[in-house]
């Protein structure tokens, strides 16, 4: 099975406190630690496990800039066969529809049986996979938390629905699935693994290689644009306990006791 996984490099929320910049129009991007979008990493692991079971190859692709090559290398160190960087100045400011349009052009240059994305990105809206599927006229399922290959033409998949329940579906290939976290346990990647793939060439494709109409992508085509960031006020805010740890422990004990939290 030929599998394509669409991935993104994003600020890592487990490594960073995301805050506004001084101008208040963007997040503070200096000194941010970036990593592969968590959902996408599960998608790559799932692709590798499927390829190990039924044979085939795994290609990872991202739309971005040269800094994004590092996550392609990382996923290649996990075992992905090929990495492709799609990068062009004309892509700047693309909305989800634009990104899906770019990916469609790439998909149509190759032949993939299965296309995976993460359910969403840290700063995204869970849109690209479903848009890509509709553009290709492939079936789509979101929130996928298990995949079983039935034969060369169909998969049995389950989706995560409310309350931890699962919705089981059969879906025809080729298809697009968005992968939920927890579907597997992504393998560890060490520095040694990344060094081993350091010399594998990663092709960069742009508008001309993809035969794309630049009018369909980028800022000018985007119907959806982020205006700015701000810090939300969700509630009145907690009473922050101050003092030494011992004082805080004593105070917390009193509070828990007063609220009926002791046995």
């Amino acid at each position, binding site marked *: 099975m030929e599998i394509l996984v669409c991935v993104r490099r994003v600020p890592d929320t487990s490594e960073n406190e995301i805050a506004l910049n001084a101008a208040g129009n963007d997040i503070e991007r200096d000194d941010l630690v970036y990593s592969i979008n968590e959902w996408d990493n599960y998608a790559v692991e799932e692709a590798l496990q499927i390829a190990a079971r039924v044979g085939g190859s795994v290609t990872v692709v991202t739309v971005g800039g040269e800094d994004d090559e590092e996550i392609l290398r990382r996923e290649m160190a996990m075992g992905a066969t090929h990495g492709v960087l799609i990068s062009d100045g004309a892509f700047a400011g693309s909305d989800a529809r634009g990104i899906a349009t770019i990916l469609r052009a790439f998909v149509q240059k190759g032949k993939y049986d299965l296309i995976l994305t993460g359910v969403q990105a840290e700063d995204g809206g869970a849109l690209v996979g479903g848009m890509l599927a509709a553009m290709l006229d492939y079936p789509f399922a979101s929130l996928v938390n298990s995949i079983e290959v039935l034969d060369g033409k169909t998969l049995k998949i389950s989706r995560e629905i409310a309350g*931890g329940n699962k919705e089981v579906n059969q879906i025809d290939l080729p298809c697009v699935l968005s992968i939920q*976290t927890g579907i597997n346990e992504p393998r560890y990647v060490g520095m040694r693994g990344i060094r081993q793939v350091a010399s594998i060439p990663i092709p960069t494709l742009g508008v001309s290689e993809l035969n794309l109409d630049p009018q369909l992508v980028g800022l000018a085509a985007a119907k959806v644009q982020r205006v700015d960031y701000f810090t939300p006020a969700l509630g009145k805010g907690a009473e922050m306990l101050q003092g030494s740890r011992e004082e805080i422990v004593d105070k917390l004990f009193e509070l828990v006791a007063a609220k009926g*939290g002791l046995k």
Partner: protein
Amino acid sequence: MSRIFAYIVHKAGVADDSALELAAAARIIDPSASLTALVMGSGPELDKVCAALPNTYAEIWKASNESLAYPNAELVRQALVKILPSGSIVLVAHEHFGIDLAPGLSVRMNAACVSDVSGIEGLNGSSLKVVRQEFGGQVSAHVACDISSGAVITFRPGAFKPVETAAANGTVIDKSSEVGVLAAKRRYLETVVAEAGDVDITKHAVLVSIGRGIQEKDNVAMAEELAEALGAAVSCSRPVVDAKWLEKSRQVGTSGKTVKPKVYLACGISGAFQHLAGIKGKPFIIAINKNPKAPIFQVADVGIVDDLLEFLPEFTNKVREMHSLSTK
């Protein structure tokens, strides 16, 4: 202004809460808009859903079709594309069905698409400015959406409070004949209900709930020791289940359990919406997190900025000490 449509998610003849929330959102977008409910399904259950909507929606477009008995987003999309006028604004809840439907529907309608909207700033000409949360709720973004050729917008469940409305005196309009034959490349097989698990966290008055901040599996024991001392149960947020440190049955949130404790100790939990949505009944929330900017501090009653792995054992000792004093 185009007519605003709301897709009604329903189950067993009852419309989801989002049916009223979407109407509230639509009235913020345009107070004068004519609201139309889209109800797809089959049989008497469909009519029961439609019968409950005329107080909220001016028109209720129903499409009855055997193949829509279970809501398959691909079939629903085909049906909607056949019946919706061009340039329509379609609202749908941002849950497992809406996430399946919205992106592909927007492509087929050649309309804009914006998802997981939690606030509406206003409409300026054909530019709709909305609010979305990003980075797990640590920051929010204003997003401008050009709705001049239509839009599909998904709304965060619970973000819009249903408003008391004058009866819309709506009429049900049967669109079934326009839907025709539907066929999908994806077929629903069954729903598998979640396993009960060893501990029922929905029955506990006190929960010691752990998140990513617990850092590794071996540290879960710290939470178990505190829970034991308090007579509480250990619950968790999604990353702990994803990492297989606790069973799915311990997860609080939209994709886990809904809990109603008296006291909720959120330990190393950032406070993403999906987690908070599983906490009901206004418990006393205590948040312990080393990140002072964690969203959990905005909704907690009491906050402690500290290293969880050092704080928890000390607090456990305090509880044990006081317990042994009181039982002597």
